[in-house]
């Protein structure tokens, strides 16, 4: 039996409406053979954690361009843990300074992609680093 297809939730938390990147990534991941659910804009961390659990996602990709990443990433991770879903991998991207990216990774964010990252690179990273939840 073939592997279960990975399910990726692409999420846009916060108030920022810059969804060009999130939509391109969602589409590239779908073209890359994953099941992709896009939350749409303006999600609260609660809505994202809830959707990740409901949709049985293997990973959540979060896009933040508003500068609120140090608030939003940890909050999504905390809420996933609270729902017993701390094993859902969290990665993301956006306008995130290098020193913040380091801190986010220390908090358990699996990877941060910054401007200039190619969709190919992101699809490859997901393929190599995300395993189906058991």
């Amino acid at each position: 039996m073939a592997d279960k297809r990975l399910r990726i939730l692409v999420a846009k938390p916060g108030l920022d409406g810059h969804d060009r990147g999130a939509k391109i990534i969602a589409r590239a991941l779908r073209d890359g053979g994953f099941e992709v659910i896009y939350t749409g804009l303006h999600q609260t961390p609660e809505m994202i954690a809830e959707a990740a659990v409901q949709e049985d996602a293997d990973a959540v990709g979060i896009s933040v361009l508003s500068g609120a990443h140090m608030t939003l990433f940890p909050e999504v991770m905390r809420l996933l843990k609270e729902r017993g879903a701390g094993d859902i991998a969290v990665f993301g991207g956006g306008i995130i300074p290098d020193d913040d990216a380091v801190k986010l990774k220390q908090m358990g964010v699996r990877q941060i992609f910054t401007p200039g990252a190619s969709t190919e690179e992101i699809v490859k990273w997901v393929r190599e680093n995300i395993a189906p939840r058991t």
Partner: protein
Amino acid sequence: MGNKKKWLETTYKQASERPARFSTVSDMELDPLYTPDDVAGSYDDALGNPGEFPFTRGVYGSMYRGRLWTMRQFAGFGLAEDTNARFHFLLGQGQDGLSTAFDMPTLMGYDADHERALGEIGREGVSVSTVHDMAALFDRIPLDRVTTSMTVNCSASILLAMYLVVAERNGIGWERVGGTIQNDMLKEYIAQKEWICPPRPALRIVTDMIEFCARKVPRWHPVSISGYHIREAGSTAVQELAFTIADGICYVEEAVKRGIGVDEFAPRLSFFWNLHNDFLEEIAKLRAARRMWARIMKGRFGARNPKSMMLRTHAQTAGASLTAQQPINNVVRVAIQALAGVLGGVQSLHTNSMDETLALPTEQAVMVALRTQQVIAEETGVTNTIDPLGGSYAVEALTDRMEREANDYIRRIDQMGGMVKAIERGYPQREIAEAAFHFQRQLEQGIKAVVGVNKYSIPEEIPIATLKIDRAIEERQIQRVRKVKRERNSVAVKQALDRVAEACRSGENLMEPICEAVRRDATVGEVSDIFRAEFGVYKDPGWI
């Protein structure tokens, strides 16, 4: 004549051609050469002289020989007093107009003390929740002499009301206040995605503001019809042109339906375009836009006043074109984009700072950006003669082609029943997402190059200094808003907010009730909550 066909088949064919795709950044393929064969239409019909219909060569008779464009750098971060200091710095450096960036909570209609504001207060613009914040923002700025642009949309009615109340408290009558508020809600659903309620009530609020300003604040531009964000979301240049003009058509239709004469409000409509990397395409876009708007206002809406037909515009260099890699290269991109704006005849210009893909700009980066405009104005000589590229075969052929292709889009939107229906169907949104994806693929396939990213990249980069927003300001702003809420007359606030709600229901113009509410210290979030309750909340359909 040039006999282009023969030349293509002989001389050009024998010469060599690089293996490249010769297309604009929007992937519009260009001919190797444009000749008189490519330029249709008579001079008077297609171009006209500057200041004369159809204004292709410029809206004013003397253009930059009469007055240079307004150098207007967009600024906003932190608390009102932080941004006020930046405003004074910019005015001190020779800038002549202000342009305000608000933070996300303000833009989305939330007060700083709302839980959804957490992490976003003052981060990508200034936080304004009350009329006191607005007063601090414009402290020691003469509102009757400096014109101000405010980039805000779904909460624009509230922010304009606050600005007017600050002016009246400084003894300046509304009739003397000049400026622009973006207030282009249609492009929010299409591209920028800042909204409170669904498109139809949002359009009603915009129309209320057009009507109110035409009658009470005659020097104010109540809508800045914006292609900028459409382009930033990944559209082509033609899509930017088409969707923006189609948005403009929709606003004019609504105001006319309201019974306002077209010449009563149309002279105060202004535009806002993006200036992207493709030099000739951008110049052609600006020239085509002026001609299209003039023809539409005259032909479709029967405007008589030439001012109603003039597309006057602000422009900003393309944020999305800047790179985080080798950021100093962005100075060069911005200079070329700004030059396209000037050769395209804009009235006002913002040049991006080189560090804006990384963070809000530092003072030093802003200064280089402003100096870029000053070098173009003072040193390059392009301001000496009007529309110097007019008559270039390539520029005229491109101008014609962009007008034609944009008109095809507008016809399709008309057939759908207008822009609101097109938006409800997701038509412009999908067209833009498609174009954005197409560009990304061309980039990854190496068909399009971005210097320093997919070509000429270097492994280790030296980081540049960036602006850090102190997170402590968040708590200070929350306390400040809470203090206003504690100390005001809550009965008076409640009554004023009830009046706004009544006007929402009755169809009475909302602006006077909103002005009264903010005078009594009702907040951005509270008036927005009335909109939410009365008009409903719009949810992103999340099309991919």
